[in-house]
Structure formats: C-alpha cells, structure tokens
C-alpha cells in the first residue's frame, strides 16, 4: 500500500515543475554564469521572499475556491501605512505587527463582502481594488520620502552572516509554519473541505463563512509581511508599490499546481511557482535578452504549464467513463 502511495504521489505537477526548475537552473549555469553571482542571488531571494509569502496566502484563498484580485492595491495601502509609521520613527519591531494587522483588517473586509453579501470573490475584490486604489492618494500625495534609517533597517542592515537578506529568514519562518499548519491543523482541513464542496463542508459542521473570513484575514496578514519587505527597500514609498502584484501571486499559485476551482493544491508547489516567477526577470537579464521580454516569458510559461497539466487531466478523463449519478431533479428541498 505504501509503495502504491509513493508511486501515485510521485508524478505530480510539483514534481514536473521541480524538474523544469532544475533544468533551467543548470542551463543558466552554463549559459549565464553571472546569474549565480552573490548580488544577483541575494536580490533574487529577496524578490522570491515577498512573492512566496503572499503567494502562500493567495494559495489558501484559492484552495477555498475564492480569489483575491485586490492584493496589489492592498499591499500599496499597507506600504504607505507603514511608511507613515516609519517616518514617525517606529522601529521594525513595531512596523511588522502593524503591517500584518493592517493587511489582515483590509483582507477581512474582502472576506466579509464575499460571505455576508454573497458576492462572487472575483467581483467583490474587483470592487475593493477600486476602493483601496482610491483611498491611497487621499492618504498621501504621491509618495512618502526621506524615510529614516530605522525604516530601511530590514533591507540594508538586517543581513544574516552579513550577506543574506533578513527577508529570506522571514520567508523561511512563514513557509515552515505554513507547511506545518496545512498538514497538522484542523483549520487546514476545513479550508480544503470548503474548496471541494462548500455545502458538504457545511453539513460536516464547518462554519463556512467564518472559515473563509479567517482565511482572508490570515492571507491579509501575509500580504502585510510582503508589503513591509517591499516598502522598506528604499527611502521613498510611492502609492503604486503593489500595483499588479496580485497577478504575480495568482500566477505563482496556479503555476504551482493549485486549481482555481479550489479544493486542491500544496504549499510546496507554490514555493516552486514563486521561485520560477522570481527568477524570470534576472534570468533573462543575465542571458543578455532585453528585460522587456520578461513578461512575455512569464505569460508563456504559465500557459504552457497549465495546458500541459490540463492535457494530462483530459487524457485521464477519456479512459474513465463519466460518472453518471442518478439525480432526482426537481425536488425543491
């Protein structure tokens, strides 16, 4: 039985992705040696960190069969919020929890719209995107600048062994907690159950609405952490720092094998997906291709990976005859 299980769980999307990643990394070693320079590696890891932290949150949301397209705008808001605190001299130890709280609060708003008002997630978050985006310039005009050293501490001073950015450590901690959480917590089972069959989950005693709202809150806290990493990278924080990032996060999750239909998906896939997305821009750069092509490559990689994994599924479908359940249509209850 154990052997069977191994065989079944061996050839997953994550596995193929990992192989793809290894091949690309080896090729880069041959074709673009500078890719492995310390500087590039460290900046890549920093990008990877904030993509992954948010993608883990997005993954949880997508597993519940919802989505969040407001993340970019939300991160922009949190960036400005923390910059305002930073300007007032609040140190990192205060900024981090503040960012997480702010992210969680805004994201909870999304969750409430979706559950209480019964609005499909994509349109609800579409609406909140506009609200977040509109609020931003009201908070500050353009940007907050001349931020003190205490604010940029994370990006410039907090280095592990003097070189590795501290964001990597944060990311590592978040990932390990997420892995444990998704495997060993009761809550994670509820998330998967809702994504599989919300009605069934309700019948099994899961408070679906509350679980979804909490999931959004957790994801929001993670978005807050990403925001802090993004915001502290310089002495100036503008009101477009997160613009468009939601698509990168969703892409990382989808690339990592999570179905947007919900109910399935693993953290480990998201890790690989996030790494591939973080890697594209520098890889292209070191291969001597114009950085203008990075988005096209990103798009092509996502299309190819979903079509290939979809094709696998189609094939499977062909051999297993569609199950035809007897359905007593027309009963009211």
């Amino acid at each position, binding site marked *: 039985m154990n052997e069977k299980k191994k065989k079944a769980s061996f050839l997953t999307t994550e596995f193929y992705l990992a192989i793809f990643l290894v091949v690309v990394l080896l090729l880069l070693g041959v074709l673009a040696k500078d890719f492995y320079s310390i500087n590039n590696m460290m900046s890549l890891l920093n990008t990877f960190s904030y993509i992954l932290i948010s993608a883990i949150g997005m993954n949880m949301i997508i597993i519940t069969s919802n989505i969040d397209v407001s993340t970019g705008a939300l991160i922009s808001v949190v960036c400005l919020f923390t910059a305002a605190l930073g300007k007032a001299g609040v140190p990192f130890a205060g900024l981090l929890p503040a960012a997480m709280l702010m992210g969680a609060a805004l994201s909870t708003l999304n969750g409430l719209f979706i559950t209480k008002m019964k609005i499909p997630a994509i349109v609800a978050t579409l609406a909140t995107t506009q609200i977040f985006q509109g609020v931003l310039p009201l908070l500050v005009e353009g940007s907050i600048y001349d931020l003190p050293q205490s604010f940029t501490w994370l990006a410039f001073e907090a280095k592990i062994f003097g070189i590795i950015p501290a964001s990597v450590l944060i990311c590592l901690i978040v990932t390990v907690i997420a892995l444990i959480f998704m495997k060993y917590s009761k809550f994670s089972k509820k998330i998967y159950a809702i994504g599989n069959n919300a009605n069934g989950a309700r019948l099994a005693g899961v408070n679906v609405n509350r679980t979804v709202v909490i999931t959004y809150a957790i994801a929001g806290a993670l978005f807050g952490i990403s925001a802090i990493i993004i915001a502290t990278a310089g002495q100036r924080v503008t009101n477009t720092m997160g613009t468009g990032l939601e698509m990168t996060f969703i892409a990382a999750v989808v690339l990592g094998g999570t179905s947007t239909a919900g109910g399935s998906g693993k953290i480990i896939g998201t890790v690989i997906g996030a790494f591939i997305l973080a890697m594209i821009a520098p890889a292209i750069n070191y291969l001597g291709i114009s950085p203008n092509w990075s988005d096209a490559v990103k798009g092509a990689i996502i299309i190819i990976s979903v079509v290939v994994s979809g094709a696998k599924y189609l094939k499977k479908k062909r051999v297993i005859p569609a*199950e035809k359940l007897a359905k007593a249509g027309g009963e009211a209850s």
Partner: protein
Amino acid sequence: MGQTILELHDIVKTFPGVLALNGINFNLQGGEIHAICGENGAGKSTLMKVVCGVHEADSGTMVVNGKQENFSNPMEAYEKGVSIIFQETSLFEEMTVLDNLFLGHEKTKKAGIIKVLDYGGMRKEAEKIFQRLNTKINLDAQIKTLGMAQKQMVEIAKALTFDANIIIFDEPTASLTQREVTALFKIINDLKASGLGIVYISHRMEEIFELCDRVTVVRDGQYISTKNIAETNKDELVADMVGRKMGSYYPKSETAIGEEIFRVEGYYDEGFLENISFNVKKGEILGFAGLAGAGRTELMESICGFTGRAAGTVWLEGKRLHIKNYKDAMANGIVYVSEDRGKYGLIVDMSIQQNISLPQLENFKKGPGFLDVKKESDKGAEYIKEVGIKAPAPDFLVANLSGGNQQKVSVSKALAMNPKLLILDEPTRGVDVNAKAEIHKIISELTQKGLTIIMISSELPELIGMCDRIYVMKDGYIAGSFDRENVTQEKILTVALESKKEKQEG
C-alpha cells in the same frame, strides 16, 4: 429486537409556501432495518434531513437514545450517534479517505504547547473500522480515484467513526451494480446484527422486501402507515404510496411491426464496446438491459456521435450513415434522450419552449438569424398539449416542474425533431409512480404512430412490460437477446450476471 432508539412525534416542517412534512410519526429500534418509502417528493428525504439536523423542524418532538433532541446541524447529530449517508455522496473528492473519515472531528494530540492532528491515531481507528466492514481501501487515496461502491464504504466508515448507533441510508443503491448491492446488503445486515438501528430509504420494492424488517409509508408529507414486512406485500405498499390501487403498470399496446429500419454492425470502441451488432424494426420498442456500467449508455452515446471515436457500421433505412457528431445523428433522424435530465437532458433554468427549441434553433430562424419567439411559443404549447406536460404556459421554467413533467419536456424536446429512431435512456428514472405510467403510455402511443424506440432501463419489469425485444449487455458486448414472448426477469439476470462470474474465474 432491541429497545426504541429513535422516536419522532408529529414532525411538521414548512418551507416558504410549502408544507413539506405534516405530522410524521416514526420509531426505530436497535437491531432493526426500517424502510421509509413513498413517491418522489413525498417527504422522505426531508424527514431524514430534519432528523440529522440539516433542517430544523417547525414543531414536533424527536427522542434519540432516550433523550429529547433538536439538532441544529449534522455535526451535533453525528455526535449524538445519528449518521446519514446521503444520496449523492457528501465526500470531498480531492481529499484523502483518511481526511474524509475524520473531517470536522479530527483527533488531535499535544505537541509541546500546540495541538496537532494525530494522524497515527486516526489511521489506527480507520483501519479498525474497515476491518469491521471487511473492506480494504487505501487510506491515502483521494476520493476521486474511488468507485461509487468504495465511496459508499467510506461514507459508512465515516458514520462508524462517530460511534453511530443510528445510520440512515438515503437510496444507497441508486448507482451501484448488482454485485455491489449484494455486498452492501451484507454490511447493512452485519451492522444490524451488532445492534445498530438502520433507516433505509428506497424506491425499490425488491430491496425493501429483501432487506428490511418494517416499513413506514409517507405520502404528500403525511404519515400513512407502518407495517411489518412479513405481513404485507408489494401491492399493498404501492397502494399506500399512491393512495389508490394501481391498475396495469405497463400499458403496452399491440403495434404493427414493420421492416428493419436501423442496423448496427461490428460496433467497436476500445475499452468500452466490443463487436456489437443489432437491428430494430419500424414500430418496435427495443430494450437494452444490463447492469450499471455494462456499456449501454456508452453504446448509445457513441452511435449518436458524442464520443466520435468508435468503429463499425450503421445503417438507417438501408442507407449507411457516417455520424461524426450529434448534429449528424439528429439530421438523420436519430435522437437521444439522456438518462440524466438535470445534467445533460435539460437546461432547468430555461423555459419549456426554450428547451424544446434548443436542438433545432435553425428551424426557428426569422430573417438573418433572429429567433422567432412566436413560433417557439406555439411549438411549446403544442407539446404541452400533446405530451400532457402539467404547466400553465410554454414559457414556464423547467426548474419549477416536477420530475415527471421535466421528463416529459425532455421527451417533447426529442419529439419536436421528428425523429425516425428515438433512444430513451432510463426514461422513468427518478419520476413518481403516476408520471411513470403516463410516460409509458406516451411511449406506447408513439410506436403506434410508427416511431421506432430504443429504451435503456435498469428496471426489468419496465423493460419486460414495454419492449418487443430485449438485448442484454454485459461488459461492453451483447450477451444475449430475448423476444417478448419468452422473457422473464430471471432469464435476463442470469445472462447479465453469470457471464461475469465466468470471466472472473477464468
């Protein structure tokens, strides 16, 4: 029989505008299997949903294991020992068997200061339960990889993880093969022997008489009767369910059978169908019997061009056909009515007339592609009258019709295409006794008008009552055929079952 473990008194439940249950009484004893039967919409499922906390009753009392209870959700019911196994499984397809068994009541253990899931403990208990059920299932398999029967085992195991002493089965055999049904009955009997009380909801008389100890009949949300199985018979139960004695079940009228109209030769589809040949004569009703999964639906869908990959030759009125898709089939006068109304047959959120016109919108064209709504409405009205659909107007939403009337819309949709050959797949599945008789009458009348019909059905009495000839399918090939004069249920079952055994032994 043991003591009473579940008692319902005067249960009343209303939905906005509907009185679903009106004073239902029921009691269940430990160590008995108690059937609840009634027509579709009689309130059986609603009653059980009240018992297990999906719905809350408006009034009435429920006593479970000696204590008065009122569950507000199924979890509460589970914890008090009441488990239900729903008609359509409520399992989580992407999750593993183990996750499903303990969902909502996972075992935890302490790891330092936090509580984590205790996979070891859950695994041990799950293994014990499957041992008790005498079934082997890979606990790490995803539900979507399991067959229907295995899924049901998981549901039963799930009930046992709660230490349930009352288990409710809601039409558990609807999608099982005969062999799986036999295995399921053994397990239900074992559970009964160990003192559990079983509520068994079913349409199928044969099953009720084979399995159950007592039977309670409900009709239109009202309690009708409770009887010992040993002291009643099928006719009596049907009379209770319908409220009057049923006359002839199957009004097959004698029709003149003409020349051969349709012939299939050497039909083959790898993995599904093997070397199938058959023919139909004008005005004939040709039946296809077989167990679930024998390939009957696959054969018909393949002939109609839904799969588009089979080999073999098909002749209609002496002309060889090359059907690439369903449109080709329809153009040649071959029309298929799916077994699954809600999923493939009808768009329930559209009106009757819109459903009827959908397959032949080109015939309702006005000008450069506009829709002739007047013509559509007339057509709808025509069929409401002709087929006897009980609806106030042709623009009435199909979702608001009863199952039987929905099926009549399905048939109308096919008839509106003026078919030469009509293929009906389980035409009376999920419709109540009255509607069933009406549909049989319609089928009979159609053949008198010269239409040729192929009918797939899992109900042998229906096939035997209605068909001129019956083919029996088995594992994708035709295992036997019978004429109307010399067919019996036993003969069909022998063919459908025995070759399976041979194959397994060989």
